[in-house]
């Protein structure tokens, strides 16, 4: 079965070809076609996974063809099947298939129906490449591919200005991260002379701590962009402009976890560079706390989920940063289940409200009391919320608790505190969402009220399946904590921190224990009890504020409006970026271009005015002298502004000339080195 | 010393070939006039010499003595270079044509490709002539011609691939040897049909003589030409006819080789086959009406192109199966 791995990406390609080339003729049949293709891929994945889990194990390379061969550099198109990629494949193919089925119902009647499914399949293809590739180059192809599909799907309703802007924002922010990934890749090649995982990791133990940290940090920049961590998380909340299935698939379950996967995949290098690990842990914890706090006050149902996603991704990086790679991947998997479920549930709500005015469809202040109208959605949503809040025995508890426990036992107490607070916030805002949306009195627009209905079966069945997974997806692979099946399964793919490695300063044995799994003693029990208390406490507080005493939030707001607005305005990060980065760049460019007109004209006019006034006053000034000085200054300035102007002339030939000069300079540097 | 001898021999060969070709061209024109005349129940040239046999020489003298006009607004350099540009490729190609097993100027291993490459240059002269004349009719004729020749060059090139695959060489001598048992025309009927049609279009012969359609474009790209320059175009057209006929003979009809039971020298066989080809050319001109421009393009791209692709595919498939 494993040698059939090449089939996995082939099916989406067929789907893309059919829907992409014959979209006009296919029409609404595009959905079923794409779903069948995703389903076939899932079947192959399941076959491979069964074989990996119960039979072969180990890692297998499926070589397809040699892609690039130039000098000492060679890259091949080959796939790597090992426990890590198996887990990722299961998540991607499973959630992907369910989202396809869900979208068949959700996108019904949209004019861009075939286009949507073409891109969805294209996304599956890219994601499979990302996960399957046995070297960084193939991963990068997939990495760019998912970025492209994300851009296309966020801007799917491109006639909406905000949607196309959000698409561009996602693309550009991602590109910043990609630059880091690329540089990391180059550095890996320089250090080890290969890009294939096995060969790179063979060379990893010889790396110095500084080199490994540099590689790790550069790759992490890529992960920060793709997985929406501080400071590059800004695109993800805006990405909610895309259709909801896209949010569920790309911006919750799969693409944004690519960064986590990449870091886990590169674990042999990371364990050599403890500095990079610390940075990851801190960035992850900060993101987790930061995004969760924003989520507390948002009113848009999808934005709450978006910030929740950012926060949960922070948890995953926290796990990676403290060396608990398996826990991170475990959380990735459970998160894919319950966050996919929550997004699809919110999509179901939005779908039910699509007769309401545009700006009210996603606003929780205009919802409420939907519990009885949409029972399936409500119950599945509730399961998802409990799972993410971390109440045992649902999925979220097992993975999140492991992360926090690992942070604690490896001595990252700050990280642990931040994580615990974030977990509390998570429980709170999720149940705030539940209570505002499904409980209380109905605040829906009267006109839309009679149109509220339960969603069709293609939408509810995926919800139910994901709900079941959210219930059992944590306990089965994750019990007993930190020594569960998933740890044993993943162990061969993930590196352990070398015992007594000279690179490590402290806590080596603790991190080792974290990677290996298995803590015991009263501290563990205490931590588990604390986690449960935190989760239940968050839920209780939400219940108190939004069901019991609905005036409480208002009182709270009145007592500290500053914090409220700070949170509602998302800490004004977008605005800060706008003023600190975007505006200055614009200004610089505009300045250069208008330098000529503004400065020269201003100088000339101002000087001449002074001249006129002064000559009128005294009448003895020699006009020529003054004019000469003025003109001299003016022409001096004009000369420089002319030079600067050519930097941005808009003429291809100028730009090309600069390229020629570049060659000239490089050759000179070579000659006179 | 050897080298000098080689060069001398080559020079003599070139001299012979060029002169013979010119003479033969002159008489082909005579034959063409006669055949068409008889096809139309006329007599044709009868005055100069016995049955007008000296007519070509008289024509040549006339063209030689005529005034050489260059239009006022014409681009002089290009105008003068254009006929040369047509004639030179037409004659350069003779360097690799095998007239018999022993009589050829040279042979190179990419002979056929060389012929295709060089003969593709003829279109330059036509385009140059059309543009340099600075006249509407000329330009239209030239544009038509460029489009037609570029398109049909593709079919010509592709139709050649079938026989090439069978022969496994681009050397013309070896292609001939490969046919010592069976002529390729029997293996490659589709390729031959396409080749023949494309060849007619490439040489601007009826029914594909659109670039010089007298009734529509006065005389097409050479409207403004007179005297020897006009003669150059004429010469080139007939020289090209010989070239494509020879290529056809080499590729499909076994070149200079004939059946073993008739002991004739190779050159004679070659001349016989060439005569048949030339006669068919003239015959078609006398009987077929001219195509319309859009029909020409449609036939080319929608009929001949798929056909020739099919032929390549079939040849490859069958060769893979049986050889």
């Amino acid at each position: 079965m494993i040698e059939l791995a090449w089939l996995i990406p082939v099916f989406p390609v067929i789907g893309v070809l059919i829907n992409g080339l014959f979209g006009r003729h296919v029409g609404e049949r595009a959905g079923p076609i794409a779903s069948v293709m995703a389903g076939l891929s899932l079947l192959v994945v399941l076959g491979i996974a069964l074989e990996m889990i119960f039979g072969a194990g180990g890692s297998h390379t499926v070589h397809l063809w040699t892609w690039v061969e130039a000098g000492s550099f060679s890259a091949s198109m080959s796939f790597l099947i090992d426990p890590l990629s198996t887990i990722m494949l299961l998540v991607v193919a499973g959630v992907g298939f369910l989202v396809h089925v869900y979208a068949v119902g959700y996108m019904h009647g949209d004019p861009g129906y075939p286009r949507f499914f073409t891109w969805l399949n294209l996304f599956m293809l890219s994601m499979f490449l990302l996960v399957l590739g046995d070297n960084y180059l193939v991963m990068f192809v997939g990495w760019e591919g998912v970025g492209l599909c994300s851009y296309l799907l966020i801007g799917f309703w491109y006639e909406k200005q905000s949607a196309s802007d959000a698409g561009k924002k996602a693309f550009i922010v991602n590109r910043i991260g990609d630059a880091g990934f690329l540089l990391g890749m180059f550095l890996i090649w320089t250090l080890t002379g290969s890009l294939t995982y096995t060969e790179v990791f063979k060379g990893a133990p010889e790396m110095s701590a500084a080199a490994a940290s540099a590689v790790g940090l550069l790759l992490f920049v890529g992960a920060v962009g793709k997985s929406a961590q501080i400071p590059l998380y800004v695109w993800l909340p805006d990405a909610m402009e895309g259709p909801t299935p896209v949010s569920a698939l790309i911006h919750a379950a799969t693409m944004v976890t690519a960064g986590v996967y990449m870091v886990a995949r590169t674990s042999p290098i990371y364990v050599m560079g403890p500095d990079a690990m610390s940075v990851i842990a801190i960035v992850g914890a900060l993101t987790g706390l930061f995004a969760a706090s924003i989520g507390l006050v948002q009113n848009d149902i999808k934005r709450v989920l978006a910030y929740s996603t950012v926060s949960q991704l922070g948890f995953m990086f926290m796990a990676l940063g403290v060396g608990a790679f398996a826990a991170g991947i475990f959380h990735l998997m459970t998160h894919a289940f319950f966050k996919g479920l929550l997004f699809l549930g919110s999509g179901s709500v939005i779908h039910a409200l699509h007769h309401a005015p545009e700006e009210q469809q996603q606003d929780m202040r205009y919802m409420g009391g939907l519990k009885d109208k949409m029972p399936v959605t409500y119950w599945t949503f509730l399961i998802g919320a409990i799972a993410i809040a971390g109440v045992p025995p649902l999925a979220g508890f097992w993975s999140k608790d492991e992360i926090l426990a690992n942070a604690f036992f490896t001595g990252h107490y700050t990280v642990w505190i931040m994580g615990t607070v974030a977990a509390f916030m998570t429980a709170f805002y999720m149940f705030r969402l539940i209570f505002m949306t499904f409980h209380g009195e109905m605040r829906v627009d009267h006109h839309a009220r009679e149109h509220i209905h339960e969603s069709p079966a293609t939408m509810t069945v995926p919800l139910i399946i994901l709900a079941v997974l959210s219930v059992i997806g944590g306990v089965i692979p994750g019990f007993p904590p930190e020594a569960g099946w998933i740890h044993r399964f993943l162990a061969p793919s993930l590196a352990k921190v070398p015992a007594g490695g000279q690179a490590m300063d402290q806590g080596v044995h603790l991190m080792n224990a974290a990677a290996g799994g298995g803590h015991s003693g009263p501290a563990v029990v205490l931590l588990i009890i604390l986690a449960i208390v935190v989760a239940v406490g968050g839920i209780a507080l939400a219940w108190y504020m939004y069901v019991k005493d609905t005036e409480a939030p208002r009182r709270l707001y009145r007592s500290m409006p500053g914090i409220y607005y700070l949170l509602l305005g998302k800490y004004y990060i977008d605005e800060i970026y706008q003023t600190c980065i975007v505006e200055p760049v614009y200004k610089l460019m505009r300045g250069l271009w208008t330098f000529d007109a503004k400065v020269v004209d201003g100088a000339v006019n101002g000087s001449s005015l002074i001249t006129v006034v002064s000559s009128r006053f005294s009448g003895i000034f020699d006009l020529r002298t003054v004019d000469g000085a003025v003109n001299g200054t003016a022409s001096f300035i004009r000369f420089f502004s002319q030079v600067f102007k050519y930097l941005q002339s808009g003429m291809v030939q100028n730009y090309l000339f600069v390229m020629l000069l570049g060659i000239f300079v490089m050759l000179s540097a070579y000659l006179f080195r | 010393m050897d080298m000098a001898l080689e060069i001398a021999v080559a020079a003599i060969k070139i001299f012979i070939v060029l002169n013979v070709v010119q003479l033969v061209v002159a008489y082909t024109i005579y034959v063409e006039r006669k055949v068409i005349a008889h096809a139309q129940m006329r007599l044709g040239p009868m005055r100069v010499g016995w049955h007008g046999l000296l007519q070509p020489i008289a024509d040549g003298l006339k063209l030689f003595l005529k005034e050489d006009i260059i239009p006022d607004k014409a681009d002089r350099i290009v105008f003068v270079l254009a006929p040369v540009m047509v004639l030179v490729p037409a004659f350069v190609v003779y360097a690799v044509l095998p007239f018999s097993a022993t009589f050829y100027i040279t042979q190179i291993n990419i002979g056929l490709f060389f012929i295709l490459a060089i003969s593709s240059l003829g279109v330059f002269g036509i385009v140059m002539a059309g543009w340099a004349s600075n006249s509407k009719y000329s330009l239209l004729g030239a544009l038509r011609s460029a489009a037609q020749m570029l398109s049909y060059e593709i079919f010509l090139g592709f139709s050649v691939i079938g026989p090439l695959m069978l022969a496994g060489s681009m050397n013309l001598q070896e292609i001939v040897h490969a046919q010592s048992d069976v002529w390729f025309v029997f293996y490659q009927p589709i390729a031959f049909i396409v080749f023949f049609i494309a060849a007619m279009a490439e040489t601007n012969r009826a029914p594909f003589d659109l670039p010089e359609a007298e009734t529509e474009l006065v005389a097409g790209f050479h409207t403004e030409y007179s005297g020897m320059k006009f003669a150059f175009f004429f010469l080139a057209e007939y020289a090209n006819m010989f070239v494509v006929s020879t290529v056809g003979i080499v590729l499909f009809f076994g070149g200079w080789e004939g059946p073993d039971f008739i002991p004739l020298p190779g050159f004679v066989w070659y001349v016989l086959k060439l005569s048949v080809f030339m006669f068919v050319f003239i015959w078609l001109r006398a009987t077929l009406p001219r195509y319309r421009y859009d029909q020409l393009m449609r036939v080319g791209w929608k009929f001949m192109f798929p056909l020739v692709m099919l032929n390549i595919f079939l040849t490859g498939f069958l060769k893979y199966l049986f050889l």
Partner: protein
Amino acid sequence: MELYFFYMFSGGMIITSLLMITRANVIHAALLLVLTFFFLAGIFVLAGAEFLAAVQILLYAGGIMVLYLFSIMLMNVEVAVRMRQWHRQGVVVFVAAVLLGLEIWAVLKGVEFPAAKQWEWSLGATPGNVEALGAVLYTKFLFPFEVASILLLAAMIGAIVLAKRTIER
């Protein structure tokens, strides 16, 4: 002997290409470029790439350049002849290019190439380089070859879409 031919061809190429970039009349420039390509084909033959030489003439001279001439005739050439021909940055570019040329020469002067290897066959003999080229092109470079065909298809579609007056929907 070979060297004399090389100097002749390369001299021809340099002269014609210099003439090419200085012509005001586009048609003349295009025809001069055709001439350059002839010399280039000659150099290819000297380098033992007969097939490439033929491709150069067949595709470049006979195909691409005719396409150029064809398109130029559809445009208004006379107007362009009367306009200013040189870009404002011309002089700077010229100086920079000459300096760059000197630098390249200085770099190449210092390079010692290892002795040339020999082909496995003698030039001009019959298995020849066509077969070798085909063998490499259709085995080792099959994938790039197919990609090139897709590139051509894309260019064809692009050119049609761009040059069409109106696209029927």
